[in-house]
């Protein structure tokens, strides 16, 4: 019983807590959310080399002389 009363007291105290809602900006530092690398997803499962190879191959397709063999 005593334990539950203590737990309830602690939870009640936590409810009074307040976090700072104003972001602190430091010039030159990105303050936003972090972003994942383009290979860290379900498609590539962290395989950076495969992603780089795919993007390079896709880039070379923009050269029409290679596509038509001219």
């Amino acid at each position: 019983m005593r334990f539950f009363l203590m737990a309830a007291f602690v939870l009640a105290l936590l409810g009074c807590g307040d976090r700072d809602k104003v972001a602190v900006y430091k010039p030159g530092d990105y303050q936003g959310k972090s972003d994942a690398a383009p290979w860290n997803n379900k498609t590539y499962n962290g395989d950076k080399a495969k992603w780089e190879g795919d993007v390079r191959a896709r880039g070379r397709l923009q050269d029409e002389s290679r596509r038509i063999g001219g």
Partner: protein
Amino acid sequence: MARMKFLCDSERCIECNGCVTACKNEHEVPWGVNRRRVVTLSDGVPGEKSISVACMHCSDAPCMAVCPVDCFYHTDQGVVLHDKDMCIGCGYCFYACPFGAPQYPQTGTFGMRGKMDKCTFCAGGPEIDHSEEEFKKYGRNRLAEGKLPICAEMCSTKALLGGDGDVVSEIFRERALKRGKGADVWGWGTAYGSAPAQQQDKAKEGKS
């Protein structure tokens, strides 16, 4: 891998606006916001040139330097992205950008400026890849699918090239060497039956 870059070949751009349309469609960009546009120099004058312009993902981006809330970041691939949750729509980045890339939706009262929107190199933003939030805020993340920006891939004349800087510059270098310069670029020999300038020069050298 080198940095991701765009390159627009003004000799090939036919001002079709296919890149603009493809971008708007792919990312469902709102009315009034153009992440990419085609600029024509000396419009209507013989020899006019067009180029497709969007965020050039500068290595030393002025938008990043002036942002008062530091909402911009560079990815490891050299793509300049920003966190829309932090953007306050102040417009400083628009004044700083030499290409006029930052855009602002003006759907609020009295044309109130919304959060900045710009080309993401089809790399989404700081949300979980392929999530609904990412699509709503930043558009589709094609780079995470191993694809290149839709504007470059849709370009009918392949004037707009995008991707790994080394690959793009290699393609352009080969192309520029092959097509030559002056009348050769316009295909004078093909159109009028005369030999290209280089062959004529060789013929002259042979005679003398």
